């Protein structure tokens, strides 16, 4: 398993797999196979894939620990950047067809419509994460602070789910599904943090001896 995970080719394969939804959309545009309301189709598809990639990204840490596969970390940045890629497309389908590229009109809409406000906030929260995703930026900011900054993905995911929930007319099954996944992944982190703290507390007190004895 480990040799597969660390293989360069696996990374290439995952990258290509992540591009499939995008390729499918391009293909559908070429074939004009986007249904009766193509703009809505693109908006919903890119929004869905954003939430999915946020969930995939949030899965990495729990999966690493639960399945003892630390090498999964090699894919986290890529998954996160794909979430950003799809959210950028999602934003463009709103800025273009809905707002006719009118920035001031868009900002008014953002201020006035709660579901746009939370969606836009989630998008904005992800921008610094995409920018600082390189090794250089981790060094410049410092590991601890970088980690703190990148925790804002939790808020982006929660806001993304709320954005979806406030958009739908009455059928909340899909937003609830994403909401449940995000909740589960965040609760796992909370539990992990809580138990780690508890198990570490006595260790910290006796730290010198324990570390001496290995």
């Amino acid at each position: 398993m480990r040799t597969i995970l660390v293989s360069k080719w696996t990374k290439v394969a995952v990258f290509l797999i992540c591009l499939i939804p995008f390729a499918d959309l391009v293909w559908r545009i070429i074939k004009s196979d986007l249904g009766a309301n193509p703009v809505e189709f693109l908006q919903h598809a890119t929004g869905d894939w954003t939430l999915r990639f946020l969930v995939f990204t949030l899965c990495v840490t729990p999966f690493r620990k639960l399945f003892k596969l630390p090498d999964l970390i090699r894919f986290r940045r890529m998954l996160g950047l794909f979430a950003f890629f799809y959210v950028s497309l999602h934003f463009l389908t709103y800025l273009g067809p809905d707002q006719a590229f009118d920035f001031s009109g868009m900002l008014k809409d953002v201020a006035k419509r709660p579901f746009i406000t939370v969606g836009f906030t989630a998008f904005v929260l992800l921008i610094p994460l995409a920018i600082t995703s390189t090794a250089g930026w981790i060094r410049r900011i410092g590991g601890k602070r970088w980690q703190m900054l990148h925790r804002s993905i939790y808020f982006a995911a929660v806001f993304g789910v709320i954005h979806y929930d406030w958009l739908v007319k009455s059928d909340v099954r899909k937003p609830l599904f994403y909401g449940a996944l995000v909740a589960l992944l965040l609760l796992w982190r909370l539990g992990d943090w809580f138990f780690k703290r508890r198990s570490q507390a006595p260790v910290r007190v006796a730290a010198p001896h324990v570390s001496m004895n290995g």
Partner: protein
Amino acid sequence: MLIRKAPDLTYADVTPRSVYLDRRKFLRAMGIAGATAVAGKGLFDLVLPPQNALAATQFTGLIKSPFSTTEKQNSLNDVSHYNNFYEFGSDKSDPAKNAQNFKTTPWTVSVEGDVSKSRKFTMDEILKLAPLEERIYRHRCVERWSIVVPWIGFSFNVLAKLVEPTPKARYVAFETLYDRRQMPHAGGGIDFPYVEGLRLDEGMNPLALLCVGMYGESLPPQDGAPVRMIVPWKYGYKSIKSLVKIRFQEKEPPTTWNRYSTSEYGFYSNVNPNVDHPRWSQSKERRLGEIFMRPTVMFNGYGDQVASMYSGMDLKKYH
């Protein structure tokens, strides 16, 4: 025109399921077509998937209506594959799939309440109540998309006058069929049966259409077969589908979406670019087939015919 763009063939397209399950009905639906023609049609279906499993009735000699718009019509394919009909699923692509075998014969519409002559109408009787007209209307959904459709029918007031509403009647309540066996996909968070209503004068307005077809044919199941209302100056959900009951009454009837969320969906639900849905603006709409949005017009552009019914009314309060 009918088949603008044939989707990819899937296994299910080879023979429509209803045809496979009920060849007799299929043959009957083919009407006078002989065995050779049926075979030919079968071959045709193999190449181009059918829009509906069962052939629709063609209407001829339709009267052109002065109410019709000259705007570009949407395609039958778009109008029959992008539907809000939660009895057949809440995704807009669901009804076209799930309503294929919807049984619309026999069909009766019961008219009751504060009328002198309450009675039931069969579909044959309804079709003979008045000469059928083609009315090309704009149709604006609360979700900010719109279409232009050549509906077929006649003013609802023809039927209403026939049953003679008593002076007590101030509203008309409508109800859609709810048959759990035929509608296993019904859902989406709203209650069934679907109910709607109009003030009596709204129902009597000549624009309010009792609709039995579109694009020269009977209605496809997903568009509300066999008979529905079309109220073009109101948001789409007011135009109730697959009608089984019409009730004249004194009290304002409950309506499905209003019951679901009173603040979001008022009883009147007139198309109004100045009154936003609490969660989104109603000032613009996307005509299917267009990329950018266009401004929404008060009463969906039917102000000349309907605005007088609301004079002096606070349309923000009575949205």
